[in-house]
């Protein structure tokens, strides 16, 4: 397909004078014109470059951590559209909306284009040489302990390089922070199965009982799970899978469930134990642990009717194998670990371990394995900053000023570091606090490798490669920057690598035997790798070896009614905006939230019954007050939420990050209590209690849903049929 990477870069060039003018004059040029426009032409062109015909490159999606492989369509040197790469086991050629919007990350008009140095409140454009020199100067005489590096999840060669850079000045303070991470579930899984993230075979389960795991929406690897879900619905042996979702606020997965069970927030573990009790198949320790969780008590504490518990137990008993998942809604409490442990216990009791929960494969290069982000890291960083332990702070792919709970006062603590460097694409909230802002290449311009945390049958390393020439001449790849920085410290070791591309190529080609390139020469192997965009490996399988130790399982009985703050705040995760790092991509802003169809704003979901009690109607601007603060947003009456809870989506309320993000909606992180999971130290996102009061203002909510209130009213628009009345076996 191509000769070598360097020639290829030439072809990535945007051809013609302005690709933009060609496309945009759509309805402008309405008659024959002679000699007004210029023809797209080349100086030199490879055979496969034909004007008017797309060229496709395989790369990887960097919009979230799921690690989907993409196939980018490039025309005349411009990347137009991303499709899924069918060769990837993770997304099999499919793409979510978030991934599609990757081009808007690349073409975003608000990207930082020059290295910026703080000068008062202004950023002053400086050269890269100066920026690098400045970093060297600031690091000079600072001990390794005084340097902190904050990043989002990193993996692959970037992680290797980063580790080497940090160790070059003896820094061990690498904080890996993801605002939304299944940190508690990982820990509970480690205990129950011996691995942090086992492989879930949703497609092989006949019943999936999910405690708030939004696997179709934003949980772990949604595109992969969505495909499994489709197979699960068709049924491996003709029997359609049954999905039961237990959660206080309906997620996208809940909306697709056969039975959505609203539960009192925080009592998920109790219900899990209640189901074990109702199953009656447990023996020994487990039976003893659940013996007090009879239907009546469980029903009283969780609010789930006893009949419902029986039904769930019956269907789990009847149809095997099943799969029980613990997700965001169950883990977000001070006793989140206990909840997750109780839920995992259910899998053991049902005998799902080894059937639908199987051993994961990992890439046999531990140094490349993903550094998994969590929220406990944020707490220790924040504590360190507050104590003034860090003089220099690096920040990459995290935006803690926006995502840290308001009560942490991260912004103030960050100011205590003397020199803050942000490697960033946009001037987000955190970058605005930095002293030096270094602009990064977009994921579609950069080289790199990715090792996804959640992998399918085979292990894979994803390749990131540029789909087009740099849009802005003065941005650089993170790998490129790290290489330059590490050359400051260890020039001898890295002098052979002219740039990150050379480093990456050398690193991969060196190990080509491990990557299945035995019989190929270096160039062939490299070209093959780039063409495929994925390196598939046998991988090593970590066996499951967890236990069913129930001695430490202690589930608190739900707290009594809190008079002052009567409602539980559920910061919900929106399928497209997630933790807000992609909020400046207009396609996502205009993509309606599937359940409420609200766009470009935040809202507060409240059950109609509760709303009637409080005298709230749709569009009322309400003030949501917690112990740490208050925010104002519009109320939306939503039947899919427990009456004791309200929910505000995360991802909006940016105070920076450009024209498409700034000033839309509110940020619920601002009012989240700093309560942590007792075992893991992860932030307990659902532990905040709030009160809601009307402000007297009212707006018309901007949403796609109509005055009919999401009812079909007359004729059949969206049909639904019960399994009794359908024969799926005859279907094609």
């Amino acid at each position: 397909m191509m000769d070598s990477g360097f020639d290829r870069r030439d072809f990535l060039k945007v051809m013609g004078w302005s690709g933009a003018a060609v496309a945009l004059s759509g309805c402008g040029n309405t008659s024959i014109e002679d000699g007004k426009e210029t023809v797209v032409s080349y100086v030199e062109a490879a055979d496969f470059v034909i004007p008017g015909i797309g060229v496709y490159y395989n790369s990887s999606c960097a919009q979230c951590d799921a690690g989907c492989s993409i196939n980018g369509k490039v025309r005349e040197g411009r990347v137009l559209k991303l499709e899924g790469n069918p060769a990837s086991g993770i997304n099999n050629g499919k793409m979510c909306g978030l991934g599609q919007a990757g081009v808007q990350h690349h073409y975003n008009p608000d990207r930082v284009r020059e290295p910026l140095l703080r000068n008062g409140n202004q950023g002053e454009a400086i050269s890269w040489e100066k920026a690098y020199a400045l970093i060297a100067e600031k690091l000079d005489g600072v001990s390794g302990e005084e340097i902190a590096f904050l990043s989002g999840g990193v993996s692959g060669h970037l992680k290797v390089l980063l580790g080497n850079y940090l160790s070059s000045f003896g820094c061990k303070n690498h904080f890996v922070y993801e605002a939304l991470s299944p940190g508690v579930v990982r820990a509970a899984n480690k205990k129950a199965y011996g691995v942090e993230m086992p492989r879930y075979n949703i497609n092989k389960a006949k019943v999936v009982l999910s405690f708030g795991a939004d696997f179709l929406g934003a949980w772990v690897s949604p595109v992969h799970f969505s495909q499994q879900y489709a197979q699960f619905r068709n049924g491996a042996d003709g029997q359609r899978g049954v999905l039961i979702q237990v959660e206080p606020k309906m997620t996208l997965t809940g909306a697709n469930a056969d039975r959505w069970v609203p539960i009192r927030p925080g009592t998920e573990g109790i219900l899990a134990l209640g189901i074990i009790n109702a199953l009656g198949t447990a023996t020994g320790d487990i039976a003893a642990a659940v013996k007090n969780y009879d239907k009546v008590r469980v029903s009283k504490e969780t609010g789930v009717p006893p009949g419902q518990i029986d039904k769930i137990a019956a269907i789990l008993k009847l149809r095997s194998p099943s799969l029980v998942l613990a997700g965001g809604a169950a883990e977000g409490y001070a006793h989140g670990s206990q909840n997750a442990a109780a839920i995992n216990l259910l899998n053991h009791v049902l005998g799902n371990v080894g059937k639908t929960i199987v051993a994961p494969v990992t890439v046999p290069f531990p140094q490349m394995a993903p550094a998994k982000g969590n929220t406990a890291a944020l707490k220790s960083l924040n504590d360190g900053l507050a104590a003034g332990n860090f003089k220099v702070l690096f920040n990459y792919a995290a935006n803690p000023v926006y995502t840290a709970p308001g009560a942490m006062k991260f912004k103030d603590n960050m100011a205590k570091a003397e020199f803050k460097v942000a490697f960033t694409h946009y001037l987000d909230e955190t970058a605005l606090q930095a002293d030096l802002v270094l602009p990064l290449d977009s994921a579609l311009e950069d080289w790199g490798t990715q090792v996804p945390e959640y992998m399918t049958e085979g292990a894979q390393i994803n390749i990131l490669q540029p789909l087009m020439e740099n849009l802005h001449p003065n941005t650089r790849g993170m790998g490129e920057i790290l290489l330059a920085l590490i050359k400051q410290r260890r020039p001898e070791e890295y002098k052979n690598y002219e740039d990150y591309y050379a480093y990456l190529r050398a690193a991969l080609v060196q190990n080509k035997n491990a990557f299945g390139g035995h019989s190929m020469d270096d160039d062939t192997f490299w070209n093959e790798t780039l063409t495929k965009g994925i390196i598939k490996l046998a991988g090593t399988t970590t066996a499951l070896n967890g236990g069913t130790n129930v001695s430490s399982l202690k589930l608190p009985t739900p707290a009594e009614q809190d008079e002052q703050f009567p409602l539980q705040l559920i910061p919900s995760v929106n399928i497209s905006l997630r933790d807000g790092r992609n909020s400046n991509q207009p396609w996502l802003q205009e993509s309606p939230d599937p359940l409420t169809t609200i766009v470009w704003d935040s809202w507060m979901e409240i059950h109609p019954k509760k709303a009637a009690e409080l005298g709230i109607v749709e569009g009322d601007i309400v003030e949501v007050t917690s112990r740490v603060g208050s925010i104002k947003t519009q109320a939306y009456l939503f039947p899919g939420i427990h009456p004791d809870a309200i929910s505000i989506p995360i991802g909006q309320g940016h105070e920076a990050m450009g024209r498409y993000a700034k000033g839309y909606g509110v940020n619920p992180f601002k009012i989240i209590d700093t309560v942590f999971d007792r075992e893991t130290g992860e932030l307990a996102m659902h532990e905040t209690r709030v009160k809601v009061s009307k402000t007297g203002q009212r707006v018309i909510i901007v949403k796609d849903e109509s005055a009919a209130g999401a009812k079909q009213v007359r004729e059949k628009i969206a049909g639904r049929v019960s399994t009794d009345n359908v024969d799926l076996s005859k279907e094609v």
Partner: protein
Amino acid sequence: MHRFLRISVLLTGLFAAVSVYAAESLQTTQMTEDSLGPLVEQPIEFPHNRHAGDAGKGGMEINCMYCHTYARRSAVAGIPPLQKCIGCHQGIESVREAPRIKKLFEYWDAKKAVPWKKVHDLPDFVRFNHERHIKRFVEQQNRPFQEVCGYCHGDVKEMTVARRSKALSMGWCASCHQKDHAVVAEGGTQIGSQAYWYTFYKPEATDGSTDVLKAKGPNDCWQCHK
């Protein structure tokens, strides 16, 4: 009163007749009429006549497809990369010092594409497909390139820089699409089965004696406007 009625009937009839005549006759005039476009000044005054012209007139009879190679593979004909010009011209010493060639090499040395101006620039909502037309008329009907290309581009081998000489209006395109064209002519390549034609009209053997399959061009709007 009768006279009055007579006059109005007469006038109405006359109007109708003129309209029908105008409507019917337009077709033929559009087919043949040449509509000369303005002269377009190009960065280099490229002599098409030297390259493609008849040998008798000092031309070299180079095939259109030699340079405009994309036309048979893509909707867009494109302009040959500069590389192609240089490929020949670096071996042709005789004209090496000619001003136009010197300019050409200036672009090459600067590694800058020549900013050629579009001459046949259709509105942006019109999508003409070169590939299909060449496949249809050059490969299947075995007609010479210069005739097929010339149908829309005029007699380029007589020009220096190209100049539009056909109307290229919608009616002009449509008038050709409405004609029956033989599917395959002698010496042409038969491509696939007949199913290929069914997209728009099944070809009909027009008269029993010749037994030649003929078909019209597509006439659905989305063929060209999307």
